[in-house]
């Protein structure tokens, strides 16, 4: 149950990031957004989105991984994976930060 709640929290916070960068994108389309379905999602918007996610989740998204992060789900998976170059293990981070937004 706790893991599910953490995932929901992460999903909501990621949705807020999307909503800031793509203000025209509404729920539920936001959760299925991808660079091919959102016209405004160009290379510059991808950088802004990455930087907003960095601020929100206190993580570093390198330029190298941006080409792979082309949909809401892929970013969600990435944030949930252990690939992040983060000082804090993500599960601990999420437990210790009840939403910084």
């Amino acid at each position, binding site marked *: 149950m706790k893991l599910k709640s953490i995932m929901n929290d992460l999903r909501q916070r990621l949705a807020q990031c999307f909503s*800031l960068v793509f203000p025209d994108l509404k729920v539920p389309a936001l959760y299925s957004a991808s660079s091919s379905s959102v016209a405004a999602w160009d290379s510059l918007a991808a950088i802004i989105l990455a930087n907003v996610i960095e601020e929100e989740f206190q993580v570093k998204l390198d330029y190298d991984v941006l080409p792979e992060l082309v949909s809401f789900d892929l970013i969600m998976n990435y944030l949930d994976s252990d690939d992040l170059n983060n000082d804090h293990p993500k599960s601990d981070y999420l437990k210790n930060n009840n939403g910084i937004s």
Partner: protein
Amino acid sequence: MQLTEALTIIREHLSADLRLCRIRLITGFNPLHLKTFLQAHLQQRIPASQVVVLTDVYGDLTGAVERLQPSTVDMCAIALEWPDLDPRLGFRQLGGWGYRELADIAVDAQSKLVAIKESLENLPNHFPVALSLPALALPPVFYTPSWQLCGVEIGLRRAADELALWAAGRPNIRLVRSQRQPVDVRTPQAFDFKGELMAGLPYTIAHADQLAHAFALLLVPPVPKKGLITDLDDTLWAGIAGEVGPEAVSWDLDRKTQLHGLYQQLLHALADQGVLIGAASKNDPEVVEAVFRRTDIVLPRECVFPVEAHWNAKSESVTRILDTWNVHADSVVFVDDSASELAEVKATHPEMECIRFDPQDYREVHSLLYRLRDIFAKQTITQEDGLRRESLRAGSVFRKEALGPGVSHENFLRDAEARITFDFAAAANPRSLELVNKTNQFNLNGTRYNQTEWQDSFGGPNAFAVSASYRDKYGPLGVIAVLAGQASETAVTVNTWVMSCRAFGRRIEYQCLKAILDRFLAQEIVFEFSPTPRNEYLQESLKLFLREQPAGRFNISRAVFLDKCPKLYHEVEIHNE
């Protein structure tokens, strides 16, 4: 500011109802985050407008400056970096860093700077431009070691500084002052090497935010405060004058009290630029005057008016000083060494900025000196700034004599030898806009303008702006009122009308109305009035012409004006009719 916050601010102001304020941002690089932060910082400074930041093609800063059309935007920000002067001074081109290239780079840079200067020179004087010189360090293009300053680098910097020196003398160009020493390109605070190579984004997010903030402050400067009220003992000088005696208080290096001397020196400089300086002290007035008579005092007594020295509450003194100055508490700063005195004043005047002068904390006092400079900073010093202190003193005499026993107010006004000069070429006088943007109590509708909006409002053939200067036997007040609007064959519409609080009680407002009725031979004046929380004085002044309190636009006919206008004793002179 974080990027998330910036995007939120921008999003909150996306409204079709707001007036657009268009900014051209010119950079040679991709301004992605700089653009976002500039929009957000400007949006915070002008919340009544929707800020739109427009950019040009990247990689051609010189061409973008040349293509700039002031009629299409309200203002402009230019972030110059070394690669804009020669691409070899950056990291995205491989044109060569050899010593043979250096002379050519210097020539190229010089010619680019000349081209930029020529383009800037063609911009109208009222079009605001914020310019930042290269903030990032040069790449390793010189053959000398990095710890040695190379002659070519000195030449490049001098060429950029010459542009800056010229620009600083232009009325419309304001330069960003970097808070730091030139940023080392190898430090991560400002330069994002990977961002530059991967996406053409040379600035870190933090630096983009900092530069955007500086641009916003330059393009929409904060309104400077008008006055400073200072405590005396252990603030203006070290020691309690009543205890140690007027000769024993100090403000010098010898007695390790230089902090107070520096504070006095700053207050003297502020007084010279027209800032009102008053003193509130729990003290014996004779003792205070004795200290001010000392020949080594750095802040002369005549710079301080009024001095409230007695044993009553500080807040009482502050209230009296505000009354004498006729300014609102939010335009004034109070400085005291005592936290409890600051709290007492703050409780009575919550809008007043109250600042502690703690002589034990050198770092804090050092920072206070800069903070006070910023609070009272101005773009230019006008003739009126030099007159303000004396005119207040004269105004105080004026009011005392007007209210004196056995003096009829009517006789007093008649004998004041008042002269008003109206100038119908007021639109171009920078004092007019300054007065419009800082006046509250006598302000027709509270509308503020940027330079471009102000100039644009005189685009029509019937638009006018007139200023009024005043002097009487007590001294000159300088330019103290501005009216602007449009004149038709039968009516004059006034959409801007402000008058300095120093000029109240002299019937100048009525003479202003008479002047425009006479000038345009109008049968009525239409006022684009809006009530504001602070313009009661204007409402009060016009009450005698109106049956009821106005809630919005109203008219006064020539007949009503002539019927109700009190007798005016001023001698009137008209310029540029």
